[in-house]
């Protein structure tokens, strides 16, 4: 069989100091096959893919491409063999235009005029419209991904690697992407599809290899295997779905009205007439594709961006002009998306990081002097309650894995007993079991009577935790709807900004 395989991977091993990222990984990809690579964060998917693309050299093991030994020393070699890769992030240049970005990923880029013509030609052939002269910084996430895909397609790859391609797309954009991928696969291009979204893999892929802690723990046919079975393979245990017993809401405690904010940087998104009403005990989910104003919204709610006093009110008290520390004292706590550098100071210890937001509410200082004993106790409490895996509270925030740091950061806020908690992407890059813990903690907090706003791009997450759903699109919020009974199609329209039309159509219908 090995002579027919497009790419066969034979017991590849790669170790980093302290961790074996890939341990004797072996599998085969057939021509024209859509092959899924499944695994939690830290399972070794990225390392494996980097070895195939020539960014990382394996310690031992070998690969064969179309029957010939294949050991790329750099991406250039991989590309000339016929392996192309669409990155999850950081492979585009915002200040350069589409054609320049594509030229950078090609071995022998043609003249700019010919290239522009070819871009238009290929983008039309695969139903991915794209203007070669536009700045990438002005494109949406979906359009940026098209740039990457077209960059790959222009080189006629035999194997296309896609790393978490749908994490930033709307459901409609996902449909378009899948259409393109199926067409490519029908033309004989093999696709290695990396994801942890099981439903997607079930609809798209022919074969799946599951990685756990650097080892292949199984292969399956995703068309016939259930999502729950694959999740168990991936995690190694079955997962409990977060749930709450009581979902009653109280008074409106937190209100935002007519909030408009100009962005702080040139590629930011302005907020326009944002209105939010949050009741005690309610979890409000705000969906939306990245770059539609999520960061700006969080900054306005946390107090990092001051606004008109009346634009934000807590218990009818105008607080729009107050800063983050005052709002913390009043009980509005936040967990921003960027863990290192925004939610936590990377090089400071967990004890110091605990102090940074909990000083007032936990009375961690006396007469202006810091009470390190109480702070340490608080950090230890958070670590214990939220099962943060770390050798101790004196370790630097940077040394924790994404999931563990996120548990610490969210736990640090929740244990301060907030009245209102705002979190942005609470489980981004967090593995499934840690994500389930975090979601459960959010639900528990709401059950105790706090209002929670969850900003997320992960629609499944919002459907799981939120009572009400609203979508953020180009700095505007759609109407709020109860999560119960929302279809993916409605959500897609809300995310795409078509909510007003939809409402109008409904109104006309009534």
């Amino acid at each position, binding site marked *: 069989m090995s002579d027919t395989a497009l790419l066969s991977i034979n017991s590849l091993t790669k170790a980093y100091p302290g961790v074996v990222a890939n341990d004797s990984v072996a599998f085969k990809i057939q021509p024209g096959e859509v092959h899924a690579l499944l695994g939690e964060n830290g399972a070794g998917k990225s390392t494996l893919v980097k070895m195939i693309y020539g960014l990382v050299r394996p310690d031992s093991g070998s690969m064969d491409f179309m029957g010939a030994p294949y050991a790329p020393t750099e*991406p250039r070699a991989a590309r000339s063999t016929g392996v192309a890769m669409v990155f999850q992030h*950081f*492979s*585009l240049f*915002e200040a350069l235009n589409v054609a320049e970005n594509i030229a*950078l990923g090609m071995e022998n880029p043609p003249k700019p005029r010919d290239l522009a013509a070819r871009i238009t030609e290929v983008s039309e052939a695969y139903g991915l419209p794209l203007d070669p002269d536009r700045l990438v910084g002005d494109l949406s996430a979906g359009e940026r991904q098209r740039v990457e895909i077209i960059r790959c397609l222009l080189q006629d790859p035999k194997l296309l690697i896609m790393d978490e391609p749908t994490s930033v797309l709307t459901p409609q954009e996902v449909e378009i992407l899948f259409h393109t991928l199926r067409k490519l696969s029908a033309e004989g291009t093999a696709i290695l599809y990396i994801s942890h979204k099981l439903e997607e893999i079930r609809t798209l892929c022919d074969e799946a290899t599951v990685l756990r802690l650097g080892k292949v723990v199984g292969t399956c046919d995703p068309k016939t295997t259930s999502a729950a079975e694959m999740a168990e393979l991936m995690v190694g245990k079955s997962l409990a779905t977060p749930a709450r017993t009581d979902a009653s809401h109280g008074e409106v405690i937190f209100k935002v009205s007519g909030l408009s904010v100009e962005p702080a940087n*040139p590629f930011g998104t302005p907020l326009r007439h944002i209105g939010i009403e949050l009741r005690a005990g309610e979890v409000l989910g705000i969906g939306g594709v990245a770059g539609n104003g999520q960061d700006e919204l969080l900054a306005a709610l946390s107090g990092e961006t001051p606004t008109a006093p009346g634009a934000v009110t807590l218990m009818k008290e105008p607080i729009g002009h107050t800063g983050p520390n005052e709002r913390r004292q009043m009980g509005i706590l936040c967990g921003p998306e960027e863990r290192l550098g925004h939610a936590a100071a990377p090089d400071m210890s967990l004890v110091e990081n605990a102090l940074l937001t909990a000083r007032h509410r936990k009375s961690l200082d006396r007469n202006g002097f810091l009470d390190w004993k109480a702070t340490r106790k608080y950090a230890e409490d958070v670590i214990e309650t939220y099962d943060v895996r770390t050798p101790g509270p004196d370790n630097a925030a940077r040394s924790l894995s994404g999931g563990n740091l996120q548990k610490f950061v969210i736990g640090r806020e929740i244990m301060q007993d907030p009245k209102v908690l705002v979190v942005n992407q609470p489980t981004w890059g967090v593995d499934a079991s840690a994500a389930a813990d975090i979601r459960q903690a959010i639900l528990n907090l709401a059950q105790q009577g706090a209002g929670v706003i969850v900003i997320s791009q992960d629609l499944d997450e919002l459907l799981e935790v939120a009572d009400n759903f609203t979508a953020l699109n180009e700095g505007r919020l759609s109407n709020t709807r109860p999560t119960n009974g929302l279809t993916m199609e409605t959500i897609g329209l809300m995310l795409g900004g078509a909510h007003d039309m939809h409402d109008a159509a409904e109104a006309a219908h009534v």
Partner: protein
Amino acid sequence: MAIDPVTLMAALIVASTPILLAAIGELVVEKAGVLNLGVEGMMIIGAVSGFAIAVQTGSPTLGFLAAAVGGALLALIFGVLTQFFLSNQVATGLALTLFGLGLSSLIGESISGATPPPVARLNIPGLSEMPVLGPILFSHTAMVYFSVALVIAVWAVLKFTHVGLVLRAVGENHDAAHALGYKVIRIRLMAILFGGACAGLGGAFFSMVRVPQWTEGMTAGAGWIALALVVFGSWKPGRVMLGAYLFGGITALQLRLQAAGIAIPVELLAMSPYLITIIVLVIMSSGKSRAALNAPAALGKVFHATG
């Protein structure tokens, strides 16, 4: 009393050339995403090494070559420290300036007072004798024309060639460039060396053409002006050249105003180029839209390849 516009224009070009050379080199460095604040140090090293070699050999050409090599060598120290040992670019650049100033004094001790060989001026029969245009355009040293050609070359390379595109890409997002398989550190090192050579040439222009002799600290802040010019020109070669001529013009005019006995304090005139630099920088940075957008996004950030 009256100021002769023809000699003023000719003096303007001479005064502008050293900062233009240094600035165009620094522009390339910053386009690659590296902030080298050691321009002043590299200029003064260029000034002293160019001067020393020209005096020794009697050849201005060898002098300029030595200046380029001297500037590049000093830049190499910066490059190795920042690119391989990941030291802080701002601190390293400042240290480079101090080191360059000190080292140049040491080297220059034995040669101060010497007279360098004269640098030939262009002499095209007919053109150079033309009234007005002749002295302004056609009677300079080859270095002046070289600096203009260099600006045009840098502009063309950055805008039209693949090499230029890769350089800009590295300065824009080094992680993405690395992921695509470009050698970020190698590209940046080349840019740093180019910047050092240009600064060295600029420095030698002071000691061999403009003054021409060696005195300690003779670049007198020209390197800082060159750094400011890159921002002033929003990383565009054409605008950097415009800026260089503007500041050169103010320097030349300021000297003539003093000589003409205009009743403005000398100190105020002498500081005017620096004042204008500050004012322009403030105006540029207050409008955060277009000018700020052209800044290389990875400027001054440490690149650490993570495989």
